[in-house]
């Protein structure tokens, strides 16, 4: 029987084909390339499902797969670079998510783009396909170089799609910013990649020959030769050096996953078409960063400092972004900040040792955030591309499908029982809590995450109420543009998933009842081969975990319940406050009461301003100074030499006065000078 694993590369290649087809022939195709993308991603989805089933052991005994498929660059007397495929529970799950959401976004785009008679559709679908290709290849990458490569390509697609409406001013600017900010993060990432290769001679994520395993050996004292060769001249200990490497790679993660302080690009990225926001800036590309940390979790676990920093960044970002989400007026802006905030949770989970929790939240968030963005897209179609929530209101009756699915997503986002977000967010906070009790850093991060739950509940439902409830506040809201099946279908699929996806890992229920229904947990534990050969199973990570678990109120189950109750309570409180303030027929801008704080929040804590200042206020003037220096001093010296030469040439030729007597005199003087000089040297006199 043919193994699914042999077709894993095709999961990425299919969208690549559709990229080429859409770019070259899209103009002449019936749906301008959309069909190519839909077929390709559908194919990818089917292959992904097949892969997942294989990994699950349902279709055979081989449950993980690693293969080098392309020799990239051959080194003689040094390491080779290659591209390879690695499939394990984590990557197969991610393949499934990415291909599913890609497919849905393609379908949605039919409604959002084709039906709206946009131009440049082949370019749009080609970019979208290229994005799917890059993301999928990134997911199954077996080494960090390949991961970096497709990480960058994802960035390119983001640039192309954010700047899709290039004829306006704002989108190209936002695209530039997105690429530049993530590039800044990738700069550190690339140093990390290069450093990892230089240190270990390999960038492989898995197996004994992979760098996490080698790092573990190095720290435990059995220093592999290549590592020792590198570290010795450097004069650094393994622990310290690995921390630096980990933090460098983390730079890329912070950039792509829009964590503080490199989160500023994401809100601007909302200039892109809404389906793009759903796909890239909510469900997948931003997830790449978090996924990367999960992928090389074995490495991060070795350096507690890095773990602590990850947790802290995550917790802080979760709270920080949530506060800004509270005051936004535009639908997609609220969602943008909620995305940043939610990825903060995932980082918090990873940093505090909650591997399963992070993957769980990644999964649920992918679904409900895609849903919310697509829902927002539907609203935007209806509102004739007006995104201001204060111009909406009362859309509930006009577009019921959108409303109900959006509500499902919102409940999930707010973390209301029993929607998907509740389960995953609860687990994140629980893991942070139990590990934080023994580690103050984690505890601080946990506290921030907890606080953010309240704000999340509040801004989510502020958004829902302002958009769908009350009375229509404009003519557009009065008479919205209708949407078709291609919008409703993806919403429906995702709406159902958002409500139900949490059931894959109902840890509190499992703990309470003792029933083994924590499927995701079991999934990530993986099979024998994943743990023993590839070293990526959950048990491997648990062995390496640098934290001790501690419990309050006397045990695991009470702690779990307290934690769940706390987060649910805060979420409900947030929702309740939103209901009080905004679920009225004529809501007003209560945020004005915040005074100076509101100004601060509306300006996003002046994060943009200082980053723009760094780019335009520091770097550009520095470049101009360098330019002046270059033109003036360096080139000045060059030109000066030539001017001086010509000037002295002009002087020298004045010796030739044209009067022959002068020549005779000069001749005599010259001869006399020679005679005197040599006479003195030769001692003639």
């Amino acid at each position, binding site marked *: 029987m043919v193994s699914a694993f042999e077709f894993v590369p095709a999961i990425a290649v299919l969208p690549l084909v559709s990229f080429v087809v859409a770019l070259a022939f899209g103009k002449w195709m019936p749906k301008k390339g959309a069909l190519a993308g839909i077929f390709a991603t559908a194919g990818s989805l089917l292959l992904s499902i097949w892969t997942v089933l294989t990994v699950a052991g349902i279709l055979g005994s081989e449950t993980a797969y690693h293969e080098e498929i392309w020799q990239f660059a051959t080194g003689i007397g040094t390491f080779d670079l290659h591209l390879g495929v690695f499939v394990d529970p984590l990557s197969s799950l991610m393949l499934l998510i990415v291909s599913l959401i890609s497919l849905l976004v393609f379908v949605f785009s039919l409604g959002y783009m084709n039906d709206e008679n946009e131009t440049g559709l082949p370019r749009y679908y080609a970019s979208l396909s290229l994005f799917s290709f890059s993301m999928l290849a990134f997911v199954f990458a077996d080494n960090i170089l390949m991961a970096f490569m497709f990480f960058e390509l994802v960035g390119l697609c983001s640039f192309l799609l954010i700047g899709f409406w290039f004829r306006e001013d704002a989108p190209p600017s936002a695209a530039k910013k997105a690429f530049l900010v993530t590039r800044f993060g990738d700069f550190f990432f690339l140093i990390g990649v290069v450093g990892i290769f230089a240190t270990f001679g390999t960038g492989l994520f898995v197996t004994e020959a992979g760098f996490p395993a080698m790092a573990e050996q190095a720290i435990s004292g059995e220093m592999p030769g290549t590592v020792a060769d590198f570290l010795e001249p450097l004069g650094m200990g393994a622990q310290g050096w690995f921390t630096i490497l980990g933090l460098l790679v983390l730079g890329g993660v912070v950039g792509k996953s829009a964590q503080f302080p490199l989160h500023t690009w994401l809100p601007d990225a909302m200039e892109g078409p809404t389906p793009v926001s759903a796909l890239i800036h909510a469900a997948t590309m931003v997830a790449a960063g978090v996924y990367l940390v999960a992928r090389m979790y074995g490495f991060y676990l070795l350096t507690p400092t890095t773990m602590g920093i990850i947790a802290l960044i995550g917790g802080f970002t979760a709270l920080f972004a949530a506060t800004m989400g509270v005051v936004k007026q535009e639908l997609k802006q609220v969602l943008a900040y909620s995305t940043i905030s939610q990825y903060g949770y995932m980082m918090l989970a990873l940093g505090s040792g909650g591997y399963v929790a992070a993957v769980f939240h990644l999964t649920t968030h992918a679904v409900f955030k895609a849903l919310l963005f697509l829902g927002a897209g539907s609203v935007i179609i209806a509102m004739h591309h007006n995104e201001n929530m204060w111009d909406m209101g009362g859309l509930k009756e006009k577009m019921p499908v959108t409303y109900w699915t959006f509500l499902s997503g919102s409940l999930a986002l707010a973390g209301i029982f029993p929607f998907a977000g509740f389960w995953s967010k609860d687990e994140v906070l629980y893991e942070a809590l139990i590990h934080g009790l023994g580690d103050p850093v984690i505890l601080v991060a946990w506290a921030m995450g907890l606080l953010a739950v309240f704000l999340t509940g509040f801004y989510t439902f502020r958004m829902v109420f302002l958009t769908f409830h009350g009375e229509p506040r404009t003519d557009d809201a009065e008479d919205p543009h209708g949407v078709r099946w291609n919008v409703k279908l993806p919403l429906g699929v995702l709406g159902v998933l958002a409500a139900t996806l949490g059931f894959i890992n109902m840890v509190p229920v499992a703990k309470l009842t003792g029933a083994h229904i924590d499927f995701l947990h079991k999934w990530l534990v993986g099979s024998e081969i994943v743990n023993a050969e590839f070293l990526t199973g959950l048990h491997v990570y648990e062995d390496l975990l640098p934290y001790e678990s501690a419990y309050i109120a006397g045990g695991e189950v009470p702690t779990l319940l307290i934690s769940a109750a706390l987060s649910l309570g805060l979420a409900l409180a947030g929702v309740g406050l939103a209901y009080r303030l905004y679920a009225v027929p004529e809501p007003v801008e209560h945020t004005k009461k915040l005074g100076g704080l509101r100004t601060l929040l509306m300006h996003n804590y002046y994060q943009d301003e200082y980053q723009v200042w760094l780019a335009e206020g520091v770097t550009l003037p520095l470049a101009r100074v360098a330019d002046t220096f270059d033109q003036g001093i360096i080139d000045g010296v060059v030109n000066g030499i*030539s001017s001086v*030469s*010509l000037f*002295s*040439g*002009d002087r*020298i*030729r004045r*010796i*030739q006065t*044209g009067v*022959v007597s002068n*020549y*005779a005199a*000069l*001749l005599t*003087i*010259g*001869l006399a000078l*020679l*005679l005197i000089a*040599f*006479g003195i*040297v*030769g*001692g*003639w*006199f």
Partner: protein
Amino acid sequence: MIPLQTQSTLPDWAALAPAILLGLTALTLFLIDSIDPNDESPSLLAGVATLGSVLAMVVTGWYLVAGTGMPRTGGAIELFSGQLVVDGMSLFFTFIFTSVTALVTVASYDYLSGRPNQAEYYALVLLAATGMSVMASANSLATAFVALELSSLPSYGLVAYLKNDRGSVEAGLKYFLIGAVSSAVLAYGISLVYASSGALQLDAVAEALSMGIQNTGVLGVGILMVAGGFAFKTASVPFHFWAPEAYEGAPAPISGFLSSASKAAGFVLAFRVFVTAFPLEVVAGTIDWTLAFTVLALVTMTLGNFAAATQDKVKRMLAYSSIGHAGYALIGIAIVTGTANQGYALGASMLHLFVYGFMNTGAFLFVALVEYWGVGRTFEDYNGLAKQAPVACFAMTIFLFSLAGLPIGGGALSKWALLSATASAATLSAWLLAAALIVNSALSLFYYSRVVKAMWIEEPAGDFEVSSHPTGLYAAVVGAAIVTFLLLPAFGVVSGTAFDAAAALF
């Protein structure tokens, strides 16, 4: 193989055949002129002159190939009790003189058309060439002096040939006056050398000096003054003052003749006299003449090139650049020190003078061509010339870039040979020379390319028409260009001979 390679097959005096041929041709021209004093048949005069010089060139070439006077065929041939000597170096330089003479006579056919006294012109050119070839063979200070004057005196007349042209006359006057002073200085220098050694024959001088030097001052002054006399011939500082004016004012073919052949003649004399008569190990206590030549080389090349860089007339620029090239060629003798590979250094200079003979003559002949057309003399006047006369301008481009040392002509290789020779000496003064050579080379690239720029890049200012294509001038220019270019791939043909001939001197 060839019978001449051993002395037994031909009488010794046959080794002087080139000089004899040149002299006879000159006399023949006088004869023709006295038979038919009217310049009715310039083609006959030009033809005879060309034939004579070509014949001399062929014979010289034959001797060179056959190895007459070279170590492999029994060493230098001494004539007239050693007053003259024929060896590789003399033949090598004679080849330069004869080939330049041939180019000049061919070119002059058109340049002189319609002018009076053509027979005298050609005869003087050939007499000067005769003097030069004797200079190359001179092995005594007496023959050297006489030969030098034999080449100088006709040159004065030739420079002032355009006797109704104020420039030509002024040039002739200045050349003559400075030349007279220089020959006096040379004569006086020789007298002092004679005072110290009691001999005039070069090897005898060396021998006498090696016995012990009584009055270092007299000898030192003598040697420096001799050097000064040669410096006049080579147009080196401080005896160069005549050169810019003489080259600018003289008929252009004569400018080419003087700046190439006459200059080379000065060098061959300097090489032979200083290496043979004043061996460094003998006179080092008195005067380190390599140091003197180093100073002269430095000042000469710098002055020549810097002054050339700011000229606005092409011919004068070439004149100054000719001074610069004298400075380059001086390098060869300036680094004939113990540390250097002496034969290599001298050979490099010889090669440079060889290539220079063609490229510089060619450049001046191009100027002659332009004068023939009546185009002005400044750089601006050359603007857009390439549109009118692409072939000639192409040739000129080869000359100029070769002069600048770019490898589309042999000038690059010879300049590099000089540069590498400085590296072989590797003394402080040699590196100074190398640095100066580089700086000046860069500068020369700048001003040579001004001409190129004018011809090819600039738009023509006026609207003149190049109406005629004078056969003789074209033939000479194109011929020189072909040789200049061929000297790049076929450099080996001459380089072996030059290095052998130079090495034989030590």
